[in-house]
């Protein structure tokens, strides 16, 4: 068995880059990117290794954001416990949603997860706990283990980096375990996996819950970074964004979503965070990825001419 594959090299490069990043880029932006990257890696566990496209993953990101914000602000829990509570909440939500959604496959799975996420969105919009349109504001970052004040950007940055690396490593372990091998087998040929005696629904559900829980960890961390849990994180457009991040990185490529998350943040920087322009830009990148660069960024680098044309089109739109 190979212990240090190309994944490990990429992993080391990513961590190195993240350690140096705050020297050149606004740290909060990198923290946001790390949260979204973890979110996208969790999402990629489903689409990349199980072939299931969830179009409702925002509910785990945003739902856990609300849970963490509530735990930290109303219950006064320290940040590490708030994140744990939120992760557990996302996992529980994942059990219910996954249990319903894995009854269908392919595009139906996508539509069902989208529908259930929309249900969750409306609940968040109306619930008193989430404060509707205002969201939960002024969430205290608190003291990590009662010792380290996360109010300082440096401490928070280090904390987010640790959460990100832990989550990333966990997903790596899941994929490279016998469990991960079964997931790949289900993606490649489900009837055959069933005939070999695997209870595929069971495996799908576990993978779905792991993915939901880690998406929750990402959302909870994001809520602490911004000290805010709001409706944008449970909206369907966020579910679309995570699909896009994964698509940019290349479906099923382990480190792809990380790259995708940073590209998305860059696009947001260029086009503004809201309004019509960013929506158009995301749509163009979607179409370009599906039609021209199906392996994501790797294909884009291989075909610089097409990439240049897409970039020119994007500049025209900005």
């Amino acid at each position, binding site marked *: 068995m190979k212990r240090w594959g190309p994944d490990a090299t990429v992993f080391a490069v990513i961590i190195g880059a993240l350690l140096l990043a705050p020297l050149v880029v606004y740290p909060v932006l990198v923290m946001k990117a790390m949260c979204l990257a973890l979110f996208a890696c969790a999402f990629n566990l489903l689409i990349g290794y199980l072939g299931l496209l969830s179009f409702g993953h925002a509910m785990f990101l945003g739902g856990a954001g609300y849970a963490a914000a509530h735990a930290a602000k109303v219950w006064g829990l320290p940040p590490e416990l708030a994140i744990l509570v939120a992760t557990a909440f996302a996992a529980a939500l994942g059990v219910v949603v996954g249990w*319903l959604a894995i009854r*269908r496959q392919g595009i139906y799975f996508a539509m069902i997860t989208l529908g259930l996420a929309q*249900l969750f969105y*409306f*609940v968040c919009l109306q619930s008193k706990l989430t404060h509707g349109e205002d969201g939960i504001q002024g969430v205290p970052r608190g003291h990590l283990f009662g010792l380290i004040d996360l109010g300082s950007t440096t401490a928070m940055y280090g904390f987010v980096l640790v959460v990100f690396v832990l989550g990333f490593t966990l997903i790596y372990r899941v994929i490279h375990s016998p469990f991960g091998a079964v997931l790949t087998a289900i993606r490649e040929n489900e009837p055959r996996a069933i005939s070999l005696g695997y209870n595929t629904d069971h495996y799908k559900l576990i993978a779905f819950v792991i993915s939901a829980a880690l998406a929750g960890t990402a959302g909870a961390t994001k809520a602490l970074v911004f000290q805010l849990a709001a409706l944008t994180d449970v909206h*369907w457009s966020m579910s679309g964004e995570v699909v896009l991040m994964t698509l940019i990185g290349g479906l099923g490529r382990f480190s792809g979503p990380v790259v995708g998350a940073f590209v998305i943040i860059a696009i947001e920087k260029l086009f503004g965070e809201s309004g*019509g322009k960013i929506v158009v830009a995301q*749509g163009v990148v*979607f179409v370009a*990825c599906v039609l021209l660069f199906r392996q994501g960024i790797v294909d884009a680098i291989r075909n610089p001419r097409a990439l240049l044309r897409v970039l020119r089109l994007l500049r025209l739109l900005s």
Partner: protein
Amino acid sequence: MPGITIPALLGQLLLGLINGSFYALLSLGLAIIFGLLNVINFAHGALYMLGAFVGWALLHYLGLGYWWALIIAPLVVGALGMVLERTMLRRLYRLDPLYNLLLTFGIALIIQGLFQTKFGSSGEPYAIPELLRGVKDLGFMVLPIYRGWVTVVSLVICLATWFVIERTKLGSYLRAATENPALVQAFGINVPRMVMMTYGVGVALAAFAGVLAAPIYRVSPGMGAETIIVVFAVVVIGGMGSIMGSIVTGFALGLVEALTKVFYPPASSTVVFAVMALVLLVRPAGLFGKAP
């Protein structure tokens, strides 16, 4: 329940029928497209919105009224659909259908974003045509004429579509191509052209629904996105196995939504998704779907 009068209840049910008309027209188009192309058309909502905007633009820039819009908007959007099919969707048929879902999602974002940039989020009003203004007293309730018109015309279009597909020669080609495109092609029927036309007709139905919706809701860039998510739930509930199934499910869910609005208003925006969850528990293939 106290405080709910019969006229108010009937009024809500009528609103439900109207929403149901849009659900039926949209899910019908989705079902036709899915049957032949195996594509779930995520751009359907955006094209519905585009239909409404074409209607608005015809009036605003060219002075062409509602009746022209009902004919021209579906033609324009249908033509655009055929171009999209020929230039983009067609390239992905050999791949996993998820790619076409993602492609049409991207197209939807582009269309929606462009209109958001141009018109903002609030949208434009569209007046009810003169002929259909006013109300009619039916004795047991007061019927706004436009609302009655929308319900009737949607029903007629839905049934006509059903008739064409299930009872005519053209429809039999379509059904045959859905079952086995290679064989139908071997009989000398131009299947790729049929696929293109089908996509065009499917999205033309969406544009038609958009024009019908224009005087009821404001014509706004966001009107498609929210609707299409509900329509997807409708599709999951009905199953995409039958044309009649999607029509019935569409109208029925509009009514369910309306009844919820009367008896427990806070749940009216979520009830369709709750029904979807329930149906998945009892009949995962959908009410009219074939077992997977």
